[in-house]
């Protein structure tokens, strides 16, 4: 039995689905963010799997850019969450934040 890229792609597809469903199902903003991280990681696994199966280094280089975008997204997103919860003392649910103005 040999380890082919199909195993990794299947694993990444499952991880992505868990992240996507979790993002839609949960109401806690922080957990929704973690689900975004799960989806980004599934994409990283796909990139590395293709990098291995095609014997091409650029797949690994692109994962770097995904990491940078993930870090930037988390920094700005958590700053937004902190700013929102400093202004209102509610629970951490996404449904309370539906006014689209400051």
């Amino acid at each position, binding site marked *: 039995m040999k380890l082919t890229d199909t195993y990794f792609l299947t694993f990444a597809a499952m991880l992505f*689905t868990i992240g996507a469903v979790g993002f*839609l199902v*949960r109401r806690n903003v922080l957990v929704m963010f973690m689900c975004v991280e799960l989806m980004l990681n599934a994409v990283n696994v796909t990139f*590395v*799997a293709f990098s*291995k199966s*095609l014997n091409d280094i650029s797949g690994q280089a692109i994962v770097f850019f995904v990491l940078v975008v993930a870090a930037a997204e988390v920094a700005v997103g958590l700053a937004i969450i902190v700013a929102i919860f400093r202004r209102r003392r509610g629970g951490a649910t996404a449904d309370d934040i539906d006014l689209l103005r400051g």
Partner: protein
Amino acid sequence: MSEVVIFFIMASIALCAALGVVLARNPVHSALLLVTVLISIAVLFIIQDAQLLAAVQVIVYAGAIVVLFLFVIMLLGVDEKESLTEPVKAQRPVAIVLGLVVLAEVLFLAGHQWATGAQQSRGSLQVGDGGNVERVARSLFTDFLWPFEVTAVLLVAAVIGSVVLARRSNKPTIDDEVETS
């Protein structure tokens, strides 16, 4: 053979922990299970000859991003109760059905040669001098030099944005207006 065993162990750990991230009531548990997912994925990177990425995954994701999450959870307080009322009608069942559709679609694509049979375009994974680190670095600083510079701009924008957002302002907020009116 041992690679297959490691893959299945790590993949099942990662998938169970990912389910735990979604299902855990306490956000702190979600964050800790997210670390488990990230470290299992780092092991999967190692068995695919991506040693540098495995290290970066542990340092950046498990080290920095999840710590940031935990920091914010501690700052805002743990909120375990989650409203079960749905603003959009039947959102959760529809989300699960949509997730299954996405899963079927991606699995269909993953098993097909016409979707996955691209040709090698850039430098090789094995050939060339130096180890994995040197080859990734050469790719980053030659083929991907322009995107690399653009990410520097992105990081600066993120730093400025988070500083501006986290700054305390004295203006009345929308909640105050709602309460006074």
